[in-house]
């Protein structure tokens, strides 16, 4: 007769060998290993102040026949602490989602129940398949002054706990970060960088619910950020970049009217345009060129027969087509 037994960490556990008398001769095993008799009180198994390592399968066998008389799976764990719950709307005005987790593990299975109440109305929070600790609610009303009340209860075999969040429709609005942030140098402008981005794809209707943006940038060599707030558009030109310095740039988004700023976007790097070094024209440069030519081999033009690009075939049987034509022409003359 096998079943599961849940016990708190630190508890004293007494296991009876099924219907066997106290004075019956029995052997207990834990995960197949015999348990020392010092843990027995008659036929009862006594485990003092159990810890997590003592979770496992406990079996009791009749002394002489080794018949299995009792079996249980001991799961040592803790009752749940107050869960952490957060709710957010990243797709306003469609709805919002709530997600939760426990601050510390319980080591035993937990079940979660969430209730969402708006005024007198109980709303359905549809659980996501993945991740499992999240559910989403569709807004049935917009522009309501009535608060939402979300209560999450977590229950396991050793106890239960709950937490409640109360909030207004507009306070939990927080878009996802902007996407596809691109930063490019501006040709012939050593102090400019052109930055562009897109609305987060999760924001359903940016035309009716426009976003505003916050851009921050700094050269890698400095810690201080520069900030620009932009009330419309999805691009901006930085005009005060330090010439030649690599920059790191990020963008955040917020609904124009309500809620809070998104997290920062993925950072992008860019360096403003710099002028290519010009060819030197001083005497020193001429002298340098001469010394360079004498130090590396350059076949004289008069001995050059074939252009390297005209050579085909392997190195061993390379045929120079130009020379070949000349030879062929001579050959024709002598036939």
């Amino acid at each position, binding site marked *: 007769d096998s079943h599961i037994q849940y016990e708190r960490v630190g508890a004293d556990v007494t296991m009876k060998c099924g219907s066997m008398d106290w004075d019956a001769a029995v052997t207990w095993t834990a995960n197949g290993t015999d348990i020392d008799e010092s843990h027995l009180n008659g036929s009862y198994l006594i485990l003092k102040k159990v810890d997590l390592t003592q979770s496992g399968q406990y079996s009791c066998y009749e002394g002489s026949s080794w018949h299995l008389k009792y079996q249980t799976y001991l799961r040592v764990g803790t009752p749940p602490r107050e869960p952490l719950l957060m709710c957010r709307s990243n797709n306003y005005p469609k709805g919002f989602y709530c997600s939760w987790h426990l601050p510390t593990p319980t080591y035993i299975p937990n079940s979660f129940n969430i209730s969402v109440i708006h005024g007198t109305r109980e709303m359905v929070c549809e659980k996501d398949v993945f991740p499992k600790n999240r559910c989403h609610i569709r807004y049935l*009303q*917009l*522009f*309501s*002054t009535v*608060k939402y009340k979300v209560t999450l209860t977590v229950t396991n075999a050793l106890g239960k706990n709950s937490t409640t969040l109360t909030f207004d429709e*507009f306070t939990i609005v927080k878009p996802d970060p902007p996407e596809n942030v691109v930063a490019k140098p501006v040709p012939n402008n050593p102090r400019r960088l052109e930055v562009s981005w897109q609305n987060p794809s999760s924001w359903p209707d940016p035309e*009716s619910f*426009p976003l505003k943006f916050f851009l921050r940038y700094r050269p890698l060599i400095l810690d201080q950020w520069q900030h620009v707030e932009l009330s419309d558009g999805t691009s901006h030109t930085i005009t005060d970049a330090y010439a030649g310095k690599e920059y790191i740039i990020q963008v955040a988004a917020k609904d124009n009217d309500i809620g809070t700023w998104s997290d920062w976007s993925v950072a992008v790097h860019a360096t403003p345009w710099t002028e290519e070094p010009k060819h030197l024209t001083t005497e020193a440069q001429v002298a340098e060129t001469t010394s360079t030519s004498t130090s590396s081999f350059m076949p004289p033009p008069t001995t050059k027969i074939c252009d390297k690009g005209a050579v085909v075939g392997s190195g061993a049987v390379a045929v120079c087509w130009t020379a070949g034509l000349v030879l062929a022409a001579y050959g024709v003359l002598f036939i």
Partner: protein
Amino acid sequence: MAAADSPSTALGRCDLCNRGIRLAGKMRLDVTNLLDTYVERQGLDASASVAAVEGVPVAAVERWDEQTGTQRLLENLAAYRAFRVLLAQMLEEQREQLGEADTALSRALAAVLLQVSAFAYHLEELLRLENRGPPSEEGAEPPPLPQLSLFERKLRGLGVLRELAQWALRSARDLRQLAKASPGSDSAPSPPDSP
């Protein structure tokens, strides 16, 4: 077939919508500031729950995205006309309570009342542009002031201002929807040509 809007009408609507959006945005900021002042001066708790107040237009709406432009304008206009009366009553109560003292709260209330009146007028203009004259206000008597204790009046005022703040938010959204809609989309579908 319904006549299509002329380009100048469409431009006029767009311009009015954009100005309305800016007006609503400014109004919302001022109402939010007024709310803070009101809570402080009236000694209220900012997080106090206020039950639905009778006679105060509720901004909450279901299926908001399915509303036509005309519906949006009519509902907005009805709301701001009601707020015009409610704010005037609040101002009157303030003055009765404090005498003729021109307090910061009274001044802020008066300023918002002016914006509400201006916005109502703006909505009437938009309705005229939609070829729908605004509904008449003639004969509409302001509701009698309920007999409330001082504390109840303060809570009522809180409810009025909170709802007004939501309306200002909704109005900006409504006008953006209006600006987004193509010209003539709010007209009733024309009957099919008879054989």
